[in-house]
């Protein structure tokens, strides 16, 4: 025994491999071997008594068709595979070029399905499926207070202090809030997004600074040092990547801040993705009074659990603390933690708002991918039928089954490769587009990139389908007798049509589901945009100015400054009216205060006690915003120098049910100050969003509030296009003080549109997917019927001869197509009824079983199916039996 089989095998392969590159040498060897055989055979024949010439002829006779078995010898080598591959690719390309319609449809289908899937998966994966980009991120949680009505409520600093001292579940705990400082100094002034954070913020996230250090508890104390940590991007862009940045002073809001750290380039701040600067919170941990900012509900809190502590256990501990107040930790009534505290994984908190939309969109794209696969299957099956004769012919001419399969495989792979390339291109464009149209506030957008795994999976799925389906005709061709295939219709055609019919029905069903989704969203957006916002939805331009710097150090200076700004803005030509307001509807601002009637004690009611939106306004606010007056009067035209208030209808209903509120006293915010006198009732406005219900609000004169809001909106009513006046109004604002940054510019019509952004985003994608799905279904129906009519020409001819009218024939074809569509729609209807649940949270003002939408989808599917049937039916109706039957 010599050696094991492995070296033998390897030597065999080596020989093959050598043969691939040195084909000539191998051919020579074979020639020589065969020549030796002929010689010996000749000699043997001579020895047996033949004359030499005859002997040689005899020997060579055996080699008749020598080329044929040289071919066979070659075929036994797998080098043959490589040679065949090249010729298969050439043949495949030629055969695809011969049917450009088929090739284009297949490549486009594959490309669209792959591209859309990859783009959507790339966008949703970081949000839905990936952990947050921090070490051991499963231990990160968010902590929220709970409002009396059960809604999550930002925490007060006092609560954070108490939790920090009493809880044992956390390794690090930090509060944070947004901060928008203006950076001046080198270069133009720039308003930065940033955060004020507790000392342990970065320790909780477990992020090490690339340069410098973290904040310390010594930084984070009342009147602590002005220190700042900046992100990598800002460091590179504004400070040229200065390696000595730590210790340098930079100017934020006209105050010098010392840079103590730079974050690494890889850092992603999931709690506020646009933040670039961080400074310590610097609240007073001694909690001097209930009236200070330490007890306002405006902090978000994150924490890192100790190893081994579960989220639920931490929640239980905090609830226990909430229910067990200690005298050393006094709590005000509005932060008594009566509703407990809520602990949730940080990941859920960050992605919660976006999750339903992305899941719905993800579901939709999976449907689209399935439709794409079904369509490719259908196209390949149809093509397989068309090629039955070709394949049978090649079998008859001696092509082996393996050879046919290899060749069809090559063609399928070619299609997949081209489709995959188109898909990759579409995915890159799609990801860019999706990021661009994503609704504001979409989390983790910076982590979005074309996902290679998704690309591989999508290409693999479609390739698999293509290969499997592509093989069906080859296997069938190899199995059937070539003669029967060439001479007559295959007996399996019926079963084959049933298979394709099923596929078409499935396609219609899936399309129907997408149509329902698109329809429901369309109706929701319609309803949303039809919501009565309570203010003028066009013609109003608003700019938010954030005051900063020493010149506006006290409330008086701020009031004087904004009075001047208002006067300057009103003087701009084209401005009809102007006003100031502490918050603008639909901007996401949610400045709420409790209200209380000093004259009547109302029973506790979560809705009533939840607080109302407080607007500190100046100028002619109600006229400018177009908020209609319901009762009494407003302070637009005087009265702004008295302690008066205008309330909204909801507030009037809740607090003054059955009585006339005009002339009544009302505490807003601090109950220790004198109450306001109600002078009027106006319509409710939508403050938070179009979808949230009408919101209760209270309006007080700006100078009658106990502090001056530092970042009010300057709103102007224009005579024409609101946006066109932006430059002029901006110039007017800066004519008063060029150093005050304008942080936001909006028109009310933009705000209304943006408020429906989530639904519009989902709608745009569903519409796109539904359109593509409809097109694919139409192609599917058309392809099937066109093929059937072509193949049944003879049968149709016979029917006509036997007395069928053209109408009968047309009806037969239409009935076939519409019947499939009806079956598909019926299945789709059931699927949509079940599947629309996934959309519930995106719907507004419309039931997920909205009959109008379902009727609409049926109509659309019917119309498209009828259109797809029309041409084949017309063609069937024109079949001339004389010609058809003679041709057979």
């Amino acid at each position, binding site marked *: *025994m*010599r*050696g*094991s*089989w492995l070296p*033998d*095998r390897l*030597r*065999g392969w080596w*020989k*093959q491999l050598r043969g691939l590159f040195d084909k000539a040498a191998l051919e020579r*060897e*074979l020639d*020589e*071997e*065969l020549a*030796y*055989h002929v*010689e*010996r*055979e000749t000699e*043997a024949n001579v020895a047996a008594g033949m004359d030499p010439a005859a002997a040689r002829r005899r020997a060579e006779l*055996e*080699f008749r*068709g020598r080329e*044929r*078995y040289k071919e*066979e*010898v070659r*075929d*036994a*080598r*797998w080098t043959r595979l490589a040679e065949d591959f090249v010729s298969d690719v050439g043949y495949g390309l030629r055969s695809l070029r011969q049917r450009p319609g088929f090739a284009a449809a297949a490549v486009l289908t594959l490309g669209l399905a792959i591209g859309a899937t990859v783009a959507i998966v790339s966008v949703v994966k970081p949000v839905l499926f990936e952990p947050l980009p921090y070490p051991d991120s499963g231990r990160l949680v968010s902590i929220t207070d709970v409002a009396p009505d059960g809604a999550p409520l930002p925490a007060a600093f006092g609560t954070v202090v108490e939790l920090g001292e009493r809880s044992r579940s956390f390794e690090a705990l930090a509060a944070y809030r947004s901060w928008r400082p203006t950076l001046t100094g080198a270069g133009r002034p720039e308003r930065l997004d940033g955060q004020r954070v507790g000392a342990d913020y970065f320790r909780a996230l477990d992020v090490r600074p690339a340069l410098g250090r973290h904040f310390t508890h010594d930084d984070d104390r009342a009147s602590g040092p002005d220190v700042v940590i900046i992100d990598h991007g800002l460091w590179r862009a504004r400070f040229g990547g200065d390696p000595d940045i730590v210790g340098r002073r930079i100017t934020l809001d006209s105050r010098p801040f010392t840079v103590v750290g730079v974050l690494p380039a890889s850092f992603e701040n999931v709690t506020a993705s646009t933040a670039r600067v961080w400074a310590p919170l610097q609240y007073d941990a001694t909690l001097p009074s209930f009236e200070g900012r330490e007890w306002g509900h405006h902090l978000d809190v994150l924490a890192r659990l100790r190893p081994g502590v579960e989220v639920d256990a931490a929640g239980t501990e905090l609830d226990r603390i909430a229910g067990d107040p200690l005298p050393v930790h006094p709590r005000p009534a509005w932060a008594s933690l009566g509703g407990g505290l809520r602990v949730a994984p940080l990941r859920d908190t960050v992605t919660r708002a976006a999750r339903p939309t992305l899941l719905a969109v993800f579901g939709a794209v999976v449907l689209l991918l399935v439709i794409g696969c079904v369509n490719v299957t259908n196209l390949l099956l149809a093509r397989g039928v068309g090629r039955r004769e070709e394949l049978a012919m090649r079998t008859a001419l001696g092509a082996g089954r393996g050879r046919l399969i290899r060749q069809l495989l090559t063609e399928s792979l070619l299609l997949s490769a081209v489709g995959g390339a188109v898909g990759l291109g579409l995915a890159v464009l799609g990801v860019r587009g999706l990021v661009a149209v994503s609704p504001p506030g979409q989390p983790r957008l910076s982590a979005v990139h074309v996902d290679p795994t998704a690309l591989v999976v999508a290409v693999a799925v479609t390739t698999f389908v293509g290969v499997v389906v592509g093989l069906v005709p080859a296997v069938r061709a190899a199995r059937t007798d070539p003669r029967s295939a060439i001479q007559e219709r295959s007996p399996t055609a019926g079963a084959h049509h049933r298979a394709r019919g099923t596929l078409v029905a499935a396609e219609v069903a899936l399309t129907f589901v997408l149509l329902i989704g698109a329809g429901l969203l369309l109706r929701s957006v319609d309803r949303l945009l039809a919501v009565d916002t309570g203010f003028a939805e066009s013609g109003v331009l608003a700019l938010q100015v954030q005051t900063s710097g020493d010149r506006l150090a006290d409330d008086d200076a701020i009031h004087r400054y904004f009075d001047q700004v208002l006067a300057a803005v009103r003087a701009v030509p084209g401005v009809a009216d102007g006003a100031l307001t502490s918050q603008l509807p639909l901007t996401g601002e949610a400045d709420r205060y409790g209200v209380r009637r000093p004259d009547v004690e109302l029973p506790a009611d979560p809705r009533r006690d939840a607080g109302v939106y407080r607007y500190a306004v100046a100028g002619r606010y109600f006229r400018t915003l177009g908020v209609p007056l319901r009762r009494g009067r407003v302070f637009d035209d005087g009265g702004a120098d008295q302690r008066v208030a205008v309330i909204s209808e909801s507030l009037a209903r809740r607090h003054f049910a059955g009585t006339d509120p005009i002339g009544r006293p009302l505490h807003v915010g601090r109950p220790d100050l004198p109450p306001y006198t109600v002078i009027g009732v106006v319509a409710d406005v939508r403050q938070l969003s179009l979808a949230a219900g009408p919101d209760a609000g209270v309006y007080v004169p700006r100078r009658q509030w106990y502090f001056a809001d530092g970042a009010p909106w300057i709103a102007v009513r224009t005579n024409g296009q609101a946006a066109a006046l932006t430059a002029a109004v901006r110039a007017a604002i800066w004519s008063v003080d060029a150093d005050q940054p304008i942080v936001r510019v909006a028109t009310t019509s933009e705000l209304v549109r943006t408020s429906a952004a989530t639904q519009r985003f989902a709608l745009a994608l569903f519409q796109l997917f539904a359109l593509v799905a409809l097109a694919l279904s139409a192609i599917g129906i058309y392809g099937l019927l066109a093929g059937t009519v072509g193949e049944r020409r003879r049968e149709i001819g016979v029917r006509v001869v036997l007395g069928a009218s053209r109408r009968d024939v047309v009806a037969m074809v239409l009935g076939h197509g519409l019947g499939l569509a009806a079956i598909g729609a019926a299945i789709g209807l059931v699927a949509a009824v079940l599947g629309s649940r996934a959309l519930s949270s995106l719907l507004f003002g419309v039931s997920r079983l909205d009959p109008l939408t379902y009727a609409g989808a049926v109509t659309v599917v019917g119309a498209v199916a009828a259109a797809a049937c029309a041409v084949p039916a017309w063609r069937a109706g024109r079949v001339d039996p004389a010609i058809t039957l003679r041709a057979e």
Partner: protein
Amino acid sequence: MAPLSNTDVLRGTLDLLILQTLALEPMHGWGISRRIRDRSEDAFEVGQGSLYPALQRLEQKGWLKSEWRRTEENRRAKYYHLTSSGRRALGEEVASWRAYVRAMELVLEPSS
């Protein structure tokens, strides 16, 4: 006994014949075909058309190895010899062929 035509040598049995022939000693193609014919008393005539592809196939399976050698009459010829895995395969092929023949015999024998 009249020679059977090439096609009567079934593919599977051709492999077996080649392996068995080479089990005795290394041999070139023509020699293999000769020996098969002689040993089968002219019953099996293995034409080149099936012999060389079969040799190629067996070599690729790693059952045979080939090398160019000088013959007795000092001419160059390609000699094939069995590899160890070829020898193992031969054992298995022979066993299964015997089982097959036995089964056939059992069926064909007039039942007693």
